[in-house]
């Protein structure tokens, strides 16, 4: 087995299986550990410049990747007209810069604030570095291997689909430049880190808040389940 075969047809499955198996186990066995682990209470000001650009940037970037995966043909069709391609690439790159700016701010904050260092685990450092490599490789790709949005739709999206259909086609990715390969491998690495790090907090996005009623009342026993005649009798 060549290293390409391992990295692009075995490693992805290993990471996905780890994530799919361990995440529910953690949810059912150690649910208490699911938390955003926010440190805003200890440091408020620097966090704003890190957390807000990072989260909004990465959510939109990941949304873009998801869109390219689901509707690659439409992305290619959109890119058929030059100005539309420039708009898409320009937006993507700006968001990527926003993301990496936020990420660097978060790394600096973790390094220089003594209170934040007190709540930093080894895993926090690992995911910060892995995320930095990921965003950096993405920006590098966007700048030097144009046009990323088009070939993502033409090569990376079919490769990902070949993974999901249990028929990995590594010919689509084995000849890509090193930085792009790093981007792909690190992405799967991050998937495997999901259940072992604070990244699980993205699974708790509290969308149910939008439709739930303001007050929550929980009964130990259901109302009316026990009647007074039962108690007296």
């Amino acid at each position: 087995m060549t290293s390409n075969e391992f990295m692009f047809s075995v490693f992805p499955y290993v990471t996905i299986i780890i994530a799919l198996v361990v995440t529910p186990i953690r949810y059912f066995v150690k649910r208490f550990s699911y938390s955003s682990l926010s440190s805003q209470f200890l440091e408020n000001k620097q966090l704003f410049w890190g957390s807000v650009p990072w989260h909004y940037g990465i959510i939109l970037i990941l949304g873009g990747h998801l869109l390219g995966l689901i509707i690659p043909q439409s992305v290619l069709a959109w890119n058929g007209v030059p100005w539309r391609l420039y708009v898409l690439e320009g937006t993507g790159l700006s968001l990527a810069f926003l993301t990496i700016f936020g990420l660097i701010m978060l790394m600096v904050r973790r390094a220089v604030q003594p209170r934040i260092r007190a709540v930093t685990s080894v895993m926090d450092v690992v995911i910060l570095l892995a995320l930095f490599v990921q965003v950096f490789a993405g920006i590098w790709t966007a700048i030097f291997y144009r046009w990323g949005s088009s070939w993502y739709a033409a090569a990376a999206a079919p490769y990902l689909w070949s993974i999901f259909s249990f028929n990995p086609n590594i010919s689509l990715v084995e000849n890509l430049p090193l930085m792009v390969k790093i981007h792909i491998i690190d992405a799967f690495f991050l998937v495997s880190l999901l259940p072992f790090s604070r990244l699980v907090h993205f699974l708790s996005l509290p969308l149910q808040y939008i439709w739930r009623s303001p007050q929550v009342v929980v009964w130990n026993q259901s109302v009316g389940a026990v009647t007074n005649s039962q108690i007296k009798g």
Partner: protein
Amino acid sequence: MNIRAQVSMMFHLDKCIGCHTCSVACKNIWTDRQGTEYMWWNNVETKPGTGYPTKWEDQDKYKGGWKKDEEKEKIELRSTNKVKGIANLFHQPHLPTIDDYYEPWTYKYSDLFDAPAGDDQPTAKPISLITGDDIDIKAGPNWDDDLGGSPIYASNDPNLGAISEKDRETLFEIDRLVFFYLPRICNHCANPSCVASCPSGAIYKRGEDGIVLVNQNVCRGWRFCVTACPYKKVYYNWKSGKSEKCILCYPRLETGQPPACFHSCVGRIRYLGMLLYDADRIEEIASCDESELVEKQRELILDPFDPKVIAQAEKDGIHASVIESAQKSPVYKFVKEWKLALPLHPEFRTLPMLFYVPPLLPVLGRVENGTYESNSDTFFTSLEQARVPVEYLAKMFSAGNQEIIKDTYRKLISVRLSKRLEEVGDLDEVKVEEAIATAGLTKETCDAIFRLTSLPTLEDRFVIPPSHREYAISMLEDTQQHKGEVGVGFSEKPERGL
């Protein structure tokens, strides 16, 4: 009508001696873990003062509680709403930080033993309980105890805005100096803003007794509750990444014991008992005019002797023994029957279920022209000679409605006059009877108030409703089987996630 039962509390401020025994009892049981050192689920503040966290009453700064949208005639959270709740997940604009409370510290006692021999005594340096680094202590949870540092602390009390410049000056005149203590725990509100703000839906009110709890397994540390609670009684555990709050010692309540802070209270200022209220009217009452909030909240509380209320309560699943407990509730007497106990800052519109009997003004006379004046005319300070301005108390306990404070004081004063007449007999009987009548009381009520205030037994103060956990358990398994299984609980440690 949808009747719910609420374990309610009453603190008699005249009896509080500010000893902090309640705070220590609570801390030793619940908040001695890492991440909770700074939390005081029960704390005692000196008023006037800025309290804990500093200036917590200033909602321009903290954005806690509900505010009324006058156009829509509806209340909404001051800090968040459905859209902001999602948009501000990553950084909350109004979250207090640990510096608004205080950075917890200890002393490096090992230095006392390990210091090399020298000419000076070794000292134990203060170190931060967060970072372990040396710390220059700037503030603590009761830094302004007994008016310590008044020019900085007491004069910044947000409630002082309600009184005139002149009154503010006299308040701090050394001969007339006055302060009182305000012990605070979670109010277990009927309309809790912490519950309404929680994106995860982790905070809930228990149906059976109205205790507000944070489900630690559902909390994801979004921290909206910390901002939304106007009393700042939900705390963020920076270590575990979860919010925590006063649980009214429910494990003790369920076994028939009063909460630790109640049980340990040296001044015996605390009372606990069931109240029945109409849950269908919560929104309507929380949205009423500011000046009416106290009266309306009294209306929310139902008469447990009314046959209609009893019938409906049984229909709504409230146990007969709980209704009986509500009939004996000392809180019901102070809040509803005698109208002596008032909610703290009703203008936050959370309908707090902890009530306070405001402190009657100091009994002692004052120094005038170099002599200490105290004759029986002024011995019981009259309303007109109030040393704590009525405006100030109205700002705290009646959303600015001074009539409510005056009504309360007329009653408190006439109880004292009535007992003075009885025990010492140096007052004019006609005048005393007049005072009692003006206050809307009778001699018998005065006696009842006196007895429950001054001579209550433990059972008078704490009328703990039966929790009937056996019925909750019997829904899941045979109670006899459960009996053999108790002690085998959850095995998951509350550890911080990776």
